[in-house]
């Protein structure tokens, strides 16, 4: 009876003999194919069979391609979405800056239009500080050095009067806004020519026409312009529009409230009128 180890060794020997035989045959085939190209005709005939098999697999391959494209495109879409979101945030910021720049351009264009109508006696001022306290409404403005701006000069915007210069420094001035409690302006009703004085009420954009008898013809939406009394201040600068007319039972005067036409907080640039200007500064026909 052979030992188990002998049997295993014998089996192994047979195995390796067979292995060497097959190895030799494989190497012969390799040599024949590389050197003599013996099997090329057979491979050519089989290639048509391979084409047919590949053709039958084509729908499956196409489905797999679509499947992988779906996932890869989804990943790309998510990535692109993230990039676009970031770009949108930057664009929004740029748009806001652009909107502010456009607004400033409009302000300057409107001021330039005013400037062109009267070449002398107008100087551009820029607001650098403001106070809207009901007891003290003012603007601090800056202007070009050596501009002949003095106390009492009117400061106007594109739509009408802003206020009056009350103090002047080297290249800065303080302007009392027309709606300040201590401010007052000689005005004239554009429609009737009636002259009166309008006072600030301390409220935002709110004025009051005082000491107007009840019988005076004055209505809501009447435009008030500067009267230019005394020839010291220009005539025809829009000041405000009548917002309400009511009778006061305790006196003989009407209670007339006026809303100023120009908003001092809306813009940053205005014009100071340093000299007498013509009455064509504002198109009074268009104010009605």
């Amino acid at each position, binding site marked *: 009876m052979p030992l188990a180890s002998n049997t295993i060794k014998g089996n192994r020997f047979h195995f390796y003999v067979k292995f060497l035989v*097959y190895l030799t*045959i494989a190497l012969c085939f*390799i040599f024949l*194919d*590389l050197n003599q190209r013996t*099997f090329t005709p057979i491979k050519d005939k089989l290639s048509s*069979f*391979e084409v047919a098999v590949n053709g039958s*697999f084509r729908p499956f391959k196409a489905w797999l391609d679509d499947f992988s494209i779906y996932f890869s495109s989804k990943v790309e879409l998510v990535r692109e979405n993230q990039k676009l979101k970031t770009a949108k945030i930057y664009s929004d910021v740029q748009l806001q800056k652009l909107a502010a720049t456009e607004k400033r351009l409009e302000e300057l264009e409107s001021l330039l239009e005013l400037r062109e109508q009267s070449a002398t006696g107008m100087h551009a001022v820029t607001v650098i500080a403001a106070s809207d306290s009901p007891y003290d409404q003012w603007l601090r403005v800056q202007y070009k050095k050596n501009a002949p701006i003095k106390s009492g000069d009117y400061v106007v915007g594109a739509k009408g009067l802003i206020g009056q210069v009350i103090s002047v420094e080297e290249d800065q001035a303080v302007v009392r806004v027309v709606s300040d409690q201590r401010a007052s302006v000689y005005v004239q009703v554009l429609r009737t020519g009636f002259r009166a004085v309008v006072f600030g009420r301390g409220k935002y954009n709110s004025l009051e026409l005082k000491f107007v008898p009840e019988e005076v013809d004055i209505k809501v939406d009447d435009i008030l312009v500067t009267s230019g009394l005394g020839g010291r201040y220009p005539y025809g600068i829009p000041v405000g529009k009548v917002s309400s007319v009511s009778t006061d039972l305790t006196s003989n005067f009407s209670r007339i409230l006026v809303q100023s036409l120009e908003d001092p907080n809306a813009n940053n640039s205005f014009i100071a009128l340093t000299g007498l200007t013509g009455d064509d500064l504002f198109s009074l026909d268009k104010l009605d």
Partner: protein
Amino acid sequence: MSVLIQRISNIKMTVSIVIGLIISSFGLPGLSSSTAPDCLALIILYWAMLGGDHGPRLSTVFVLGMVVDFLGGQIVGIHALKYLCLVALAVQFSSRFRMSARLNRTVFVVLTVLALEVISHGLVSLYVGASMDMGRLVAVAAWGMTWSLVEFILEKNYSRVDRL
């Protein structure tokens, strides 16, 4: 005394070999021939290592290799050479392979397929006078790492325990 009888399903082996043959011959969609996996090599290695006496024979793997070469239009005999070497390695190292951990097996498989690729295509490249395709070697090593997946799919089924 109880003995664990390992039953290997011949149907399972046949089906896995046929699938491996198709994939090795015609490739996977979307992959070029240089990076396509040699699934049949992994399947043959699996059955040779873990199949014991029921593993594929030398004649069978030789014929399979020739079929792959003819159908794939490659150098006739290359795959037959590779598969023969795999079976020979399995005979030598199968018992140690079965006892080692999964990670060790994967490393062994990667090194084995890489070495066989270098030997087989390296010799051919030397004979022809061309340089070896390094991308091919990387692809082969990468496909070798899917050994755990092959094991998982083809795991043996211990279906019966007999008492003696």
